[in-house]
């Protein structure tokens, strides 16, 4: 288990020393969300209604943007092979890396969501659900996206490929994630949608970890 925590500490330290990637995601999220009022018109009622969808889609795209950085540096400099030789099973290494990826994307996005929500005149009552659904949903996105990122290692035009593989898998998460905040906006009980999102995330946990480990073994063996 010490290796597990060592990997997490190492990744966090890397990001602390080079916060560029984190800043990239944060500024992408803010910039892209601010495009929507300019494009669809700044009518407050309209913005309040479509805010959950816009925040979710933009969060999804931010995760997508960060995915190529998940495995590619380790693959290119060969440290993934060193990690695979360690005593820790590859599945747990994957879990550690995905956990860090989730921390470094979900937390900034969740912290920025209240700011964006205010800009979009989102009903303040829906805000806790919005943030909660993002924290939960981005975990599923990280897990599923990690498969795509690992499968595209060493491929031509890898970035586009990651998007093409990951987006179809992201769609169910998006649907139920948005419906949580939407139901809260319509003052309907949103527990059901929240439980479904939690179930999807729990389901994505083994699928994402096993699929990524499989794909990494394949990438390294060739």
């Amino acid at each position, binding site marked *: 288990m010490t290796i597990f925590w060592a990997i997490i500490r190492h990744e966090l330290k890397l990001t602390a020393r080079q916060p560029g990637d984190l800043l990239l995601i944060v500024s992408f999220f803010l910039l892209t969300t601010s495009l929507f009022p300019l494009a669809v018109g700044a009518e407050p009622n309209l913005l309040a209604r479509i805010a959950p969808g816009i925040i979710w889609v933009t969060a999804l795209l931010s995760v997508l943007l960060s995915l190529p950085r998940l495995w590619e540096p380790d693959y290119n400099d060969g440290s993934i092979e060193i990690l695979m030789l360690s005593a820790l099973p590859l599945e747990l290494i994957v879990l550690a890396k995905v956990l860090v990826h989730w921390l470094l994307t979900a937390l900034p996005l969740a912290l920025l969501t209240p700011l964006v929500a205010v800009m979009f005149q989102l009903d303040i009552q829906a805000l806790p659900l919005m943030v909660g659904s993002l924290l939960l949903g981005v975990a599923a996105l990280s897990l599923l996206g990690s498969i795509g990122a690992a*499968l595209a290692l060493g491929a031509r035009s890898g970035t586009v490929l990651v998007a*093409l593989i990951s987006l179809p898998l992201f769609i169910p998460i998006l*649907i139920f994630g948005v419906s949580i905040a939407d139901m809260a906006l319509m003052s309907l009980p949103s527990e059901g949608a929240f439980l479904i999102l939690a179930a999807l995330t729990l389901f994505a946990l083994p699928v994402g970890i096993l699929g990524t480990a499989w794909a990494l073994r394949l990438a390294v063996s060739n």
Partner: protein
Amino acid sequence: MAIANPCLPWLALLTVACLIWGLYLSLFASPADYQQSETVRIMYVHVPSAWMALFIYSVMAIASLVAVIWRHPLAEIAAQASAPIGAAFTFCALVTGSLWGKPMWGTWWVWDARLTSVLILFFIYLAHMALTSAFDDPARGRRAAAILCLVGFVNVPIIKFSVEWWNTLHQPASVLKLGGPSIHADMLWPLLIMALAFKLIYLCLLIVRMRNELMAARVRNLTAARARG
């Protein structure tokens, strides 16, 4: 391949015969629906296409499983060869469904569970094809695509049961269900013949595409051997 090659012309002949018979039955011999009148004939293309979309993906998933577990090269090639055919059938199901939806539901497209999940299936087919061809080493691409295919298989039961789990505009299954089909024999038979014809089309195309792929692999190996001198 030794068995498949001599069979292919006969199989092709059978496919054409079956398709002509099925088209005659569905376009001329079968009755028009009392509610939908002549537009019901879209069903004879739409439903078999949709069945094929799911069937081919299931075949690919089984082939991928075999490929991943036993590393059988023919299974990988079968999955690779099936993907574009499956994508074509899925596209066909989406387009004919859209054409059928306009007169019946009054709209080309609705974002309900069945239509959305089939659209996702189409995207997964596209991703599978892109991933297969994205590597310099074709074997690597096929193995990566096998993993994607297995992950994407989650979608298949969702599509199958989407009409029962959610309230959708799309009608529930009326052929494969408990208590026998709820569709009249005059319409059921043309439908089944068309489904058989579509299965045969898939089989023919699969054999041709697998043969092409095996020959391409042989050409690659020979050129590589010659380049090595």
